[in-house]
């Protein structure tokens, strides 16, 4: 399953402008996709058809809202795809737990550490912190942090 | 009851008394000189550090009961082997050996029967 037909499957879902090829040597991923919150499920379905597995879901907190990073990879060829979803504060995303079971725990962890809600997630409850914890530790305004930047500072757009 | 019989019963009485004392004395000793621990969760059931959920009074499968029965059968069987071990090889070696083989053989037939009946295999209910 090479990168081309993964691109071709994803192009049906995402506008070509959002698909940015990345230099694998330096950045570690071949393709970067900027998706909106409602396109997430379609992108996940396309990746599943392209026989990719969900490598990880990470989140980063910026001044203009948290950003969720979905990473898909295929075990037959180097084709790591980074899907970047920029959310505004308090916005929620559709859970892709029904497509990739791995997402269930990743989403619970992102919810617990960042406070981002995932709609129609089977059981969105705490995973790592004690049951009575009511804070979201990885948000930049919690605890001791070096800097709190916006996406322009880092990605320049 | 001749004096001799009464005299013999004294031995039995002493033996029983010693047995009872032998059983109870560790309890008394540890009650007296053992340390005492203190703590809120001291008396709770141990379930790898977590509070146990629900009560243990539930219906569980009958196979556990069969395991216990088989254990009991062979436990009693060992009880009979003690005196045999004492009186073993007093001249008729072959006879004693065959008797034991027959004795244990018949008992292990119970296991073979239970095994063939499939009592020990865990059937899946759902």
């Amino acid at each position: 399953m090479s990168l081309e037909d993964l691109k071709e499957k994803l192009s049906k879902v995402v506008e070509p402008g959002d698909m940015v090829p990345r230099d694998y040597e330096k950045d570690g991923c071949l393709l970067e996709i900027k998706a909106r919150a409602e396109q997430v499920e379609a992108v996940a379905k396309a990746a599943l058809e392209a026989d990719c597995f969900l490598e990880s879901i990470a989140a980063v907190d910026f001044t203009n809202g948290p950003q969720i990073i979905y990473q898909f990879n295929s075990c037959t060829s180097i084709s790591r795809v980074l899907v970047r979803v920029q959310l505004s504060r308090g916005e929620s995303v559709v859970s892709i737990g029904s497509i990739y079971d791995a997402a269930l725990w990743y989403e619970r962890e992102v919810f617990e550490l960042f406070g981002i809600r995932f709609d129609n997630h089977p059981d969105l409850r705490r995973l790592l912190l004690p049951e009575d914890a009511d804070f979201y530790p990885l948000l930049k305004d919690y605890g001791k942090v070096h800097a709190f930047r916006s996406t322009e500072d880092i990605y320049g757009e | 009851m001749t004096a001799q019989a009464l005299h013999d019963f004294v031995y039995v009485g002493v033996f029983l008394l010693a047995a009872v004392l032998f059983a109870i004395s560790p309890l008394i000793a540890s009650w007296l000189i053992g340390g005492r621990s203190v703590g809120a969760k001291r008396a709770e059931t141990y379930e790898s550090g977590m509070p146990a959920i629900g009560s243990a009074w539930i219906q569980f499968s009958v196979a556990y009961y069969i395991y216990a029965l088989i254990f009991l059968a062979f436990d009693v069987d060992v009880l009979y082997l003690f005196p045999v071990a004492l009186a073993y090889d007093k001249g008729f070696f072959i006879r004693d050996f065959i008797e034991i083989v027959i004795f244990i053989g018949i008992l292990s037939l119970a296991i073979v029967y239970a095994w063939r009946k499939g009592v020990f295999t865990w059937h899946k209910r759902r």
Partner: protein
Amino acid sequence: MANEFLEPITEQTFYLNMGPQHPSTHGVLRLFLKLDGEYIVEADPVIGYGHRGHEKMAESHLYEQFLPNTSRMDYLAGLIFNHGYVAAVEKMTGIEVPPRAEYIRVICAELNRISSHLLWFGTYVMDLGGFTPFLYSFDDRENILDILDRVSGSRLTYSYCRFGGVSRDVDDEFITATHQFIERLRSRWDDYHNLVTKNVIFIHRAKDVGVINREVALRFGCTGPILRAAGVPYDVRKAEPYSVYSELDFEIPTGTKGDALDRYLVRLQEMEQSLHIIEQALERLPDGAIKAAVPHKVRPPRGDYYFAVESARGAVGFYIVSDGTSYPYRLKARVPSYGNLQVLTEVLPGTLVADTISILGSIDIVVPEVDR
């Protein structure tokens, strides 16, 4: 109290905590099991008992200060985590690592992989009731720890890889000790096989137990020996060759059915492959510097980067967002045991409680790595 026994109790399932303190959960993992007699109806691994907040720590510490944390996430394959983190930062800042350092890193990483597999072998067979293989494998493992201790200074939590190379050079004694270790371990293989692989009880406890086929493994994002036992030859050292793995030749052992026995055999063959890699790397060890010139505080350019290595348990990835300062803005460690543990929710229901121990042992979880 009395009438409680009068009503017929229909519900026959009960809840059992294979909880944080359990000899076979290798750390503080809690399996919340719903049991119906000996069969598991539902299994919910509860994690978080080893959560130390590594990722929050990274945001308020320098790149150099976070280095010791990496080998404390997965302390069985600490050097491989070190290698992953250090190579990620080097790739971000474009630091050129001298070839001798790359070869030393590969040798020590493979030694660390063997020591992690040996520990898994000992504890797995001990969970299934065999006590002597634990002593054999720990004896061999102590040899590796001596070799690595001599050169890196610690037995478990290494900070041996530094940005730009390694902290100390290896000497001839290291090389001879490694050669002796390779002969010794190779002479012990048939002991291990006779003692365990050909043991009928072990085969009954591991054959057709906890079958994880290709589809389930990919759905849960499992990597490492679990995915390879299901027949998928995915290994980051071959799929995305980093460091000098492209110049060394080794095969990827794969299984067929994906049951506990296949995972066991895959790990044993992996140990032999690692020995093969170490031998080649020792022959090709070039001379030269062991550390490139690196600024005191590394300041990677802005942007986000991802770098993956192959740890003993699967693909370890470091996703680092840098804002140009010498503090990482965000650091996420993609950890293999996270997906490997989640597969239990799919595999355990329907198995016997006794098989849980065998499945959990064959998956080889390190809990602080899952909890980060």
